[in-house]
């Protein structure tokens, strides 16, 4: 019965559905327009952008990839792409490895210390960054953590709240019997963890990896405060803020090109693992 009505609906789209389809298509254009806008202008000569920003480039205004070349070479954008990738990949790797171990320990061991730590990690999720911003930056400076590797270590500390929370939730659902068998076989806790538990955690590992990668990649205030503007370790958001946000003589063309270049890696990442990203983000929202 239900199946029959389903196929009927699929065969014949009603008038209402067709209207909805047209409206949705218009909405898609509206949603993509800001990105189309910077894309169009990134191919125009820098003096033509403010004259007619909504026109497509024509033979007079078309500038080829000049803006991209300027954007990439002049402003240290190329090195920013490298450092963004470096910091994101190392931070996420550290977070996945160490917080999952921590979460496993504090979930499996029943002690006051373990549950105290669990609440502390959960608590850290509701504290806004501005609360610890100044004192954390000073501390990081004193301990010479104002390097890319130091940043990764700080991200491990900041990312720990959400990551431990999500891993703990999953560890609770793993039946103890599986691990007891491996202990009987003579595994020590570390062997047991890496051979038995960690592979089971895979779905949560993917979710945590996506959430943390997006956060670290897009984060602005932490790298800006810890590493600062003057060093060579700037990340993409810091460079964009520095160059696009500064007043004075702006190269509009290079600016548009840099915005496009900043968006491209995210779009590629999204299209490549769309299913995991949507699931991961939603899971993170519902739990956090």
């Amino acid at each position, binding site marked *: 019965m239900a199946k029959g009505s389903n196929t009927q609906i699929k065969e014949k789209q009603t008038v209402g559905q067709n209207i909805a389809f047209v409206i949705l298509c218009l909405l898609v254009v509206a949603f993509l327009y800001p990105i189309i806008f910077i894309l169009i202008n990134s191919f125009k000569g820098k003096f033509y952008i403010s004259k007619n920003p909504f026109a497509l480039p024509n033979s007079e205004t078309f500038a080829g990839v000049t803006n991209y070349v300027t954007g990439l070479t002049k402003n240290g954008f190329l090195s920013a792409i490298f450092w963004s990738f470096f910091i994101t990949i190392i931070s996420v790797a550290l977070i996945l490895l160490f917080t999952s171990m921590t979460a496993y320990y504090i979930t499996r061991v029943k002690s006051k210390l373990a549950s105290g730590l669990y609440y502390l990690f959960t608590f850290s999720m509701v504290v806004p960054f501005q609360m610890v911003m100044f004192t954390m930056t000073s501390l990081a400076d004193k301990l010479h953590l104002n390097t890319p590797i130091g940043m990764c270590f700080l991200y491990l500390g900041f990312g720990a709240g959400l990551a431990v929370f999500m891993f703990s939730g999953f560890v609770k659902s793993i039946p103890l019997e599986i691990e007891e068998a491996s202990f009987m076989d003579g595994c020590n806790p570390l062997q047991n963890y890496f051979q038995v538990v960690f592979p089971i955690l895979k779905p949560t590992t993917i979710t945590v990896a996506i959430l943390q990668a997006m956060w670290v990649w897009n984060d602005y205030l932490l790298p800006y405060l810890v590493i600062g503007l003057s060093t060579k370790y700037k990340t993409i958001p810091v460079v964009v803020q520095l160059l696009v946000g500064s007043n004075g003589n702006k190269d509009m063309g290079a600016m548009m090109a840099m915005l496009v270049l900043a968006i491209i890696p995210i779009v590629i990442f999204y299209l490549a693992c769309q299913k995991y990203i949507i699931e991961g983000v*939603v899971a993170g929202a519902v739990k956090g």
Partner: protein
Amino acid sequence: MQKTLKRYFLVFTLPTLVAFALAFIIPFIMGVYMSFCEFTTVDNAKFVGVSNYVKAFVGSNSFVSALGFTVKFVIVAILSINILAFALALVLTKKIRGTNIFRTIFFMPNLIGGIVLGYTWQQMLNAILLKYQTTLVSNSTYGYWGLVLLMNWQMIGYMMIIYIAGLQNVPTDLIEAAKIDGATSWQTLINVTIPMVMPSITICTFLTLSNSFKLYDQNLALTAGAPMHRTEMMALNIVNTFYGKTGFQGVGQAKAVIFFIIVAAIGAIQLVFTRNKEVDQ
């Protein structure tokens, strides 16, 4: 097993705990203490009692106008984002061609970082406003609605996905039963669908609430508070207090503590709401 594992405490937790202590616990405790101090660096803190908290509310660059602007922004953002996202979710669960492509596109802006997003919108909105010989920062109303638009653009797709998941869990026989009883589609929506997706509505409301309330990157990129700090939200106001004028670091820290208390209170209320819902079911 417990006993053997217990001896491995440091092996399993040390790296995380050291990083967590340095990045969060120690700065947090220092932050609470220093909100009662006058200082320019962490080494010259001088205890001054609650005067920073008083200065947070009175005098120049006070919190009050930023708080007002934030509340005004948050209310409009919550309503517009949730109504539009829910409407989109309703349409996209109605078996229309290309549903998956639509979902993919609407969700995408959520992944782009606030700074890049803010400047993209700034460029576009300024190009539009230029036709009327004005800019985004010439009037705080433009900045306000620009921020609302931007936030809608970023969050609608995200909330839509959560609403779609909620709508797909509504049993079809309930909807069919309502139809047989002669309910119009509007009546079905109000009396059957919406009560059934109440948990999703709660989640989305709190998500938009806390995300809009803590907004920083987008605010900085779009207007940076211009003109005259009138489009400055709480987070931006705090950062500007810290790094704008020397000698105001203590006031900035006191504002940050107040900000934290408000955010934590929102979290606590959310917890109560979701717990109550769980009991109902």
